[in-house]
């Protein structure tokens, strides 16, 4: 065991710059990969935030009784989609109208024409047009309901954006992920290839494949975790700086987690890269 650790650490010294290049490549690849992931996550957050402004306005009929309105409220509150419910009575509606359009308009009419309404705020995750349609369907037949309105065009546009974004996210993850694996495994391959002679000699003096492999694997994992840590720290601080500097961006909470994810990812990539490289060499030796 101590041999494996000693050899793995010595490996960095022996390959000199190569080990550093390997670590650097891993870090750069993971910064690109993680950065894109964070940007995508933030866009998701941004869109969700925009959608949170989407409200369903249920206009109540003037003839609705107190009981009917309470019944409607009860039904809406029972739905998981509904986050907040605000009752606006006729007087409040009028006041709001006057605030927007100026006093005097309503004075001309003897009777207040504005209906009372329920403003429904939606739970995050339920802000798609289908969910909204479902809510509307559930309550539109209620006696108290006169009319239901919501920013349909907006919601549909945002839905489409989310759809496209998801597609891009999958594509980016695959393409950049594959590119990272390729670049990292190739760099690791170079550092191991440089020690091909040593590996051959080890075989000739009676080392088993697993004995030869172990230090290289550990070396790859250490290198990968170093690269991953650099990437994680960089992403974390940039992310933090951005969210402090531009609080309105309201980057997704927990996005830092995506940054820290680069450490295990680096380890896995480093280990895997080493494993593949060493196998390629061992297979071609007598």
């Amino acid at each position: 065991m101590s041999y494996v650790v000693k050899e793995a650490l010595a490996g960095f010294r022996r390959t000199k710059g190569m080990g550093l290049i390997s670590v650097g490549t891993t870090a750069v690849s993971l910064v690109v990969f993680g950065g894109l992931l964070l940007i995508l996550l933030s866009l998701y957050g941004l869109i969700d935030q925009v959608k949170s402004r989407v409200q369903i306005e249920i206009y109540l009929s003037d003839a609705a009784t107190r009981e009917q309105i309470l019944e409607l409220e009860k039904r809406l509150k029972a739905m998981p989609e509904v986050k907040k419910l605000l009752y606006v009575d006729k007087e409040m509606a009028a006041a709001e109208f006057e605030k927007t359009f100026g006093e005097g308009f309503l004075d001309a009419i003897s009777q207040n024409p504005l209906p009372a309404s329920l403003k429904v705020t939606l739970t995050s995750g339920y802000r798609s047009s289908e969910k909204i349609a479902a809510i509307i369907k559930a309550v539109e037949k209620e006696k108290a309901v006169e009319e239901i309105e919501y920013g349909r065009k907006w919601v549909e546009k945002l839905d489409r954006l989310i759809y496209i974004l998801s597609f891009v996210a999958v594509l980016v993850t695959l393409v950049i992920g594959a590119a990272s694996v390729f670049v990292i495994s190739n760099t690791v391959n170079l550092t191991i290839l440089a020690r091909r002679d040593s590996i051959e000699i080890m075989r000739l003096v009676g080392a088993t494949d697993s004995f030869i492999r172990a230090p290289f694997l550990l070396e790859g994992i250490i290198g990968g975790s170093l690269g991953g840590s650099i990437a994680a720290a960089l992403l974390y601080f940039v992310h933090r700086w951005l969210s402090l500097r531009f609080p309105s961006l309201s980057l997704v909470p927990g996005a830092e987690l995506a940054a820290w994810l680069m450490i295990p990812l680096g380890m896995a990539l480093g280990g895997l890269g080493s494993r593949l490289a060493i196998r390629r060499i061992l297979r071609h030796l007598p």
Partner: protein
Amino acid sequence: MIQMHHVYKTVGNTTVLEDVSLQVEKGEFVFLLGPSGAGKSTVLRLIHFDERPTQGWVRLEDYNSSTIKSRHIPLLRRRVGMIFQDFKLLRDRNIFDNVAFALEVTGAKKALMKRRVLQTLTLVGLGHLRNMMPVQLSGGEQQRVSIARALVNQPFALLADEPLGDLDKEAASDILQLLRDLNHQGTTVLMATHDTELMETLPYRCLMIEKGKIF
């Protein structure tokens, strides 16, 4: 016991060995004598299972080239010492670690390893160079490191490929004496050389090889 049975070795279109049969008994000291390019190294490499015969078979104790599993080859190599013609030292570690490596692969204890390596290095007259890197050593010194590594496991057989090739007269006679002492203690020695003088002065059996054939 070492045995080769009607062994042919071809590489590409060239026939390196042709119908080679030989046998070396336990405890014997045998010279494999032939000019450059005769196939001496190839014979030793085949016995060390670094290469496989194209035809025929090679046997070393219980290991037979036609039946051996590749995972058993490392075990065999730990029990047979090979002195490589081109030394095959690990450039990336010092002399002590080079010799220690042959013990390291067997999982030997640290203390035992240290003692054995120092003993063996002293035996070949290199104790004082243990912290040097291979590139800092002369050809003859590197050759003696290779010899020390072959001996450190206390092998039952030694395959020596021109072990005196890069040594001056004095060092050569020292190493030859070392090999003869080991042989006295029971180690089988098969030594490839092109030095006919050795054969004339020493009472050992001699296998003559030329152009891939044994005479």
